[in-house]
């Protein structure tokens, strides 16, 4: 089941899609999208629930000497990349249902004056 494509979800997906191979941690996503972390974490949990996103702990040896706890990195799954591209494209497309855009009748092909 696809998650609800709110503007915030779209922003997060666009950020992750910018470099799909690179994992991003919550605070980083928050900074990149300009959204508060309180918005980011529920979105990441939803995306994880539908398997669009996977999260992994930072390797202990990737921050030697810093003496801080591990970060949690999020990255899109192959299915997530495909699905989020489709969903984002759909979100930006003029309303396709019934050939109408915001209530305005859309001319059938070949009927334009």
């Amino acid at each position, binding site marked *: 089941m696809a998650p609800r494509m709110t503007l915030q979800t779209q922003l997060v997906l666009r950020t992750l899609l910018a470099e799909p191979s690179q994992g991003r*941690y*919550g605070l980083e996503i928050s900074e990149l999208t300009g959204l508060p972390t*309180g918005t980011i974490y529920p979105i990441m*949990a*939803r995306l994880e629930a539908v398997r669009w996103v996977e999260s992994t702990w930072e390797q202990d040896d990737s921050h030697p000497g810093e003496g801080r*706890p591990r*970060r949690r990195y999020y990255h899109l799954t192959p299915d997530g990349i495909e699905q989020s591209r489709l969903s984002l494209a759909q979100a930006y497309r003029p309303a396709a249902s019934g050939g109408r855009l915001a209530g305005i009748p859309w001319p059938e092909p070949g009927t334009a004056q």
Partner: protein
Amino acid sequence: MTARSRARANDYRRRVDDIARAASLEFAPSAARSAVAPYALHQGKAWDLIARAAYRAAYSAAYQEAATSLLKLPDRDHLPDGSTWSTVAVDAAAAAASRAYAVAVFRQNAQRSSAAWLLRSLAHLLPADVRGRWLQEWAGEVATIEGRRAKVRYAWQTLRGLPGLAWTLWTSAAEAQR
């Protein structure tokens, strides 16, 4: 040893190692007992044995005896390998270790502000099996933020999203069970 029990043993070892690290983080190794013993007392009789086992492992690990103590842990408690009790004990000890570690790391790294306290308290809204994971994640984030004000802002922002996160996690868990 089957692949499943090996995986469980590895997971257990990793988690007990976590609790050892927590004990060393929050207290000097010589005081590691203080980090884990109170936890054992709060778990009731059924958990006492398990928590004490985790404590002993943590205590020894703090003294660089991790490998020996962790490998011998099931043996020390005379838990027959493969029995239901043994399985329950290992799982429970793993969960206990994980939670204790998460809270200790969070305490260690988060500012002792009202926001951090609230965040830790309200984390109880989250399902128990994932609570530790989120606390650890927040601890990891807070540790990289510079400045008390920024840390408090982060905690408050996260706090505001906590009900939404709880709702998402509970509904996902319910859907997974169906």
